[in-house]
């Protein structure tokens, strides 16, 4: 270690110092001019042949990135528009469907009402026809009964009075008596 320190200490002392501070630091204007030329050549070569293709490539890449971003933005806007269109069409379709369903309901109700009315009308007609038939039957039965009763009464009276009365005359008398009785009853 001591030897090392000694070496360090002796380095500067053993240097041949010429030309003051610049000389001791090794600064030489001729070398500096050489450095200046070398740097100038380097800048010239790089700026002329190396940087332009690199810059062109960077510009191209930047353009590509910008274009891609633009395309992506456009695509996203398009998809948003499409989604909006779809939503709009869906809502429109839903409204139409609701209208159709409502119309169908209405129609069904109308059909039901019509059917009910028709059924009622038919049943009423049937009932009326049946009633009329019944009334006719009753009338016929009544008439038959009346005739038979008159005959029976004539026969019975003939038997009772034992007197042969003209059949036709009797019957006329009896019918008059019955209708009188009926009138009295009705009254």
């Amino acid at each position: 270690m001591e030897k090392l320190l000694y070496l360090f200490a002796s380095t500067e002392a053993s240097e041949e110092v010429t030309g003051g501070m610049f000389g001791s630091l090794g600064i030489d204007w001729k070398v500096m001019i050489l450095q200046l030329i070398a740097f100038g050549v380097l800048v010239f070569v790089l700026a002329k042949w190396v940087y332009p293709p690199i810059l062109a490539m960077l510009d191209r890449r930047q353009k590509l990135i910008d274009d891609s971003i633009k395309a992506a933005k456009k695509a996203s806007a398009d998809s948003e528009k499409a989604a909006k269109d779809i939503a709009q069409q869906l809502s429109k379709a839903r409204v139409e469907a609701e209208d159709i369903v409502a119309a169908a309901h209405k129609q069904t109700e109308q059909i039901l009402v019509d059917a009910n009315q028709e059924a009622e009308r038919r049943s009423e007609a049937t009932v009326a026809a049946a009633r009329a038939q019944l009334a006719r039957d009753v009338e016929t039965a009544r008439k038959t009964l009346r005739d038979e009763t008159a005959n029976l009464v004539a026969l019975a009276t003939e038997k009772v009075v034992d007197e042969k009365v003209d059949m036709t005359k009797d019957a006329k008398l009896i019918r008059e008596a019955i209708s009188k009785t009926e009138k009295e009853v009705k009254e």
Partner: protein
Amino acid sequence: MHVSIKAEPLFEMFGIEITNAILLGIIGLGFLIVWMIFVARKIAQDRYGSDKKGFFTRLVLWVFEGLYKTVHETIPNKKVARQVAPFVITIFFIVVIQYYTGILPFVGEAMTFGHTPLFRSQAADLNFTLTLAIITIVACQVWAFRVLGFKGNMHRYFVNPLKDPIGCFAGFLELIGEFSRMLALAMRLFGNVFAGEVLLVVVAYLGSFASPALLPFFYIFELFIGGIQAYVFFMLATVFIGLAVSHDSHAESVHSTEVKMVSEMST
């Protein structure tokens, strides 16, 4: 163990002493130019942006893109930022290459020419760092003159003391600041690289037989510091130019935070 604060001369050519730093600097510069042209060719061939690029091509692209964005974020003026970017990005690449070539295993005492090491990191030579710093500060002035005009730029330093005494003093400080910035840029990079090299040598000597196990950690540390130092130099150059072309109070505050951040990183 041999530690020299300055680059040592190997031979003389056209009246210029060729030092070991210049020798490695030429290798680093040549490597950087060849690599960059290779990358540019790869990119030019690949017009459609496929992913069939090699690791080093992608590394350069990644670094370039990051630095380019930083320049645009730091300098709001788009036109100036586009002009400044090649200059400051070149500073980053040359600094990082010169730093990394300096920690290659054959640099230093491993290969000697006579008694002096054959190679020395270019960034551990004040000539290189000082030249870069001078170029940066001169570039600041050039852009300041172009954007603010002669009068506008001069007004940053010279204010009428009768009208605005405080502004006059601030302008004087600004003038001194330009020189101190230049020195700080040069000394910071030089100090870091030189200290890094000395650290590696000291670890190698002190570690003795254990040094092969110890050195990799310090190499990784040096790689990290190299990237940081190159980024600091790049960032400061960008900030100085940005400040020079947009001279107002807002830029001043942005600048001071940036400088604070960068100086914290560098220490």
